[in-house]
């Protein structure tokens, strides 16, 4: 990130670092957070702490802003979730067969006109998001990592310390449920 380090103005430097690192930092936070709905708070704290630091001490000594921010993120996540209970790692829903999963994945790739209408309906779109985020802490994270961060399911499984079928089940179960619930 040599060109970023060359930026002298603090605001400009911060904006540039923010743009370049948000993906990686948010990926870390999402994977560590209890619920994706908490991620905004944590990310804001991380970048606020970073901005305060560079304001006070400058940034010329920061070799890798991303690494620096991930270190801050570790502290923030640890303190933020220090009081949370450990979640159970077991899940009790039935597995989908391979054929069913293939069918769901094929359906995900098909174009459907009504989805744009759904996105235009703010209230409905928010309800769909809330349904994912509040259903289960892991499901929200899986959705974010798969659809926004474009991570493959096996990568997500590694990242979250789950087995692949668990990740797939959570994903597809929610998609199928939402199909019925919201007529998608």
């Amino acid at each position, binding site marked *: 990130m040599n060109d970023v380090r060359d930026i002298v103005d603090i*605001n400009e430097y*911060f*904006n540039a670092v*923010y743009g370049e690192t*948000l993906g990686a930092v*948010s990926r870390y936070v*999402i994977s560590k957070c*209890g*619920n*994706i*709905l*908490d*991620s*905004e*708070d*944590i*990310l*804001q*704290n*991380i*970048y*606020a*702490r*970073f*901005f*305060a*630091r560079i*304001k*006070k001490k400058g940034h010329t000594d920061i070799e890798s802003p991303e690494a620096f921010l991930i270190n801050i993120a570790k502290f*923030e996540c640890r*303190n*933020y979730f*220090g*009081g949370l209970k450990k979640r159970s790692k077991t899940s009790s829903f039935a597995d989908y067969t391979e054929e069913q999963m293939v069918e769901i994945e094929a*359906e*995900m*790739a*098909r*174009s*459907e*006109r009504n*989805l*744009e209408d*759904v*996105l235009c309906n703010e*209230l409905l*779109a*928010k*309800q*769909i*998001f*809330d349904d*994912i*985020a509040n259903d289960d802490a892991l499901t929200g994270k899986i*959705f*974010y990592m798969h*659809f*926004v961060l474009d991570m493959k399911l096996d990568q997500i499984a590694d990242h979250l310390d789950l087995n692949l079928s668990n990740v797939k089940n959570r994903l597809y179960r929610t*998609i199928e449920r939402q199909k019925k619930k919201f007529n*998608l």
Partner: protein
Amino acid sequence: MNKHDFYKEIMSRYTFDEDKILKNAKRASSVSFLARSSKWLPLTTAAAVFVAVFGVYMLFGTYFMNNGGDDLISGSGASVEDRLSNLEQLWTAINNDDFNAQNRTLYLSFEAPLTYSQLDNILQAADPDDSSGLYINALWNGGFVPADTAKGDTAAVYTGAKINAHATRDLIIALSARAEFSAVELDDVTNDDNFSPIVKTPPIQVTPTPVDPPVEPVEPITPTPTPIDTPPETEPTTLEQPPSGEEELEPTEEPIEEPLDEPVVDPEPEEEPEVVEEPDPEEETEVDPEPDPTENLTIEVELEGALSVNFLSDNRFLVLAEDGIYIYEINPTTRQVSNKSAFKNENVAYPTIIYTDAASGSRVIKIANTEMFIACGTTGKLHRIDISRFANSVITDVIYSNGMLVVATENAGQYAIHTARELDGWGFFKIIESGYRLVPVSLSDKELIYAESSSSLGYMFRYVFAEYESHEIDLSRFDVRVSHGVSFKRDGRGQYTIITTNIGDMVWCHETNALIRDTNTPRTVFSNTYRLLEISPEKIIIKIIS
């Protein structure tokens, strides 16, 4: 668009707002502890503890060192200010990530006395993997007692301690976050010679109360509503039906004589308001027009089925009874009791108080989900509020102040806040809607502060009223630190926030996302002249205390 792109858009749009994070990160970093404009309290443990420690000091502004003796504010060597200044510097360093870990002696001040064993448990919890090598050096109770000695005395309690540890930033934060400790100090200013615990409130001093001279027993006076023998000459008060649906029970000019066993009167328009029970004339006692204050210590009111008595003002009290709601007034000169307002309850459910306005003594009363009343502390009127519009909703919260009622409701996952003013005849306006639970927190003439709860954190908002001309005012979000008498303090573990408002303290529990509020503020005393002495099945006895 396919479903993959659809979910990408949904998750991107709502998980977090990138622009807001960027903007708020810069703004938040400009204060000494982290505060964000969309939230009303800091999130990191370090910042939360800073507020818990310094927020309290700033809010209350008075600190004491507890020497266990008469000298509440003292200390040889370092003053309170020196030590607090040192604490502030410590927290500045911690917040700026500028704290160097090293082996140190730490001085702990306790919120409340602890035994050795209790302290040991707390320290273990703060440092569960024992990474700091923490051990108790001595405990303080007017002087330092070595740990070995203290350990052997299981009953002894202490108000401070000295510990040794490899003091890391995390350890300072963990110890300071404990509710049992009011201060955690390093040994650069504080030492064995000048230490005494820093407490946030002064030690309670008990002075013996003088023994009252014996008083001759006297006959309790049973005052009768006046005039007892004169039938009411005024027209029975009728309840008018204003366009907004308000019903107000007018105070009667004279108390109505009919006893309770007469037919029930439903307070509908053109019907008489309900009756206050009158004593049997045969049981009347003559009232001495100039009672000797040393003899008239109690007042009795004959009323069957009283459930509770609450004073609205110095000489006005509210009675919730099995069959109705009554407001009585005591004449300060004659001590005679008259009925101001009454409502006859047809419901199976009993009335209950759901809100107390500490400023005026007014109460909001609900009967099941069908009836709501405001017992006004300043006028003695009983206002009946039409809540039929909420028939399909659940009323989740209510607050009241100075002629304005705020009701929060929930209906099929949609939340709303409605206001109704006495000036408008108690007609309701919906002013806020949300998909998240809305909780009114504080109300004044000019503004309503409410919380919108989402996920694990509560958002605080402010809604500002115009000059009674319109309810349509800009909705603004801001980070409330101390504003218009509302202040917030978060406990060190981040589980609760204590909100201090003009109506008393409330606690927001982040885990359950609920506001815990006393409906009858115990600290507020509305009458300095009278106290409730007894409620019996047939009567109420009021004690005159001044």
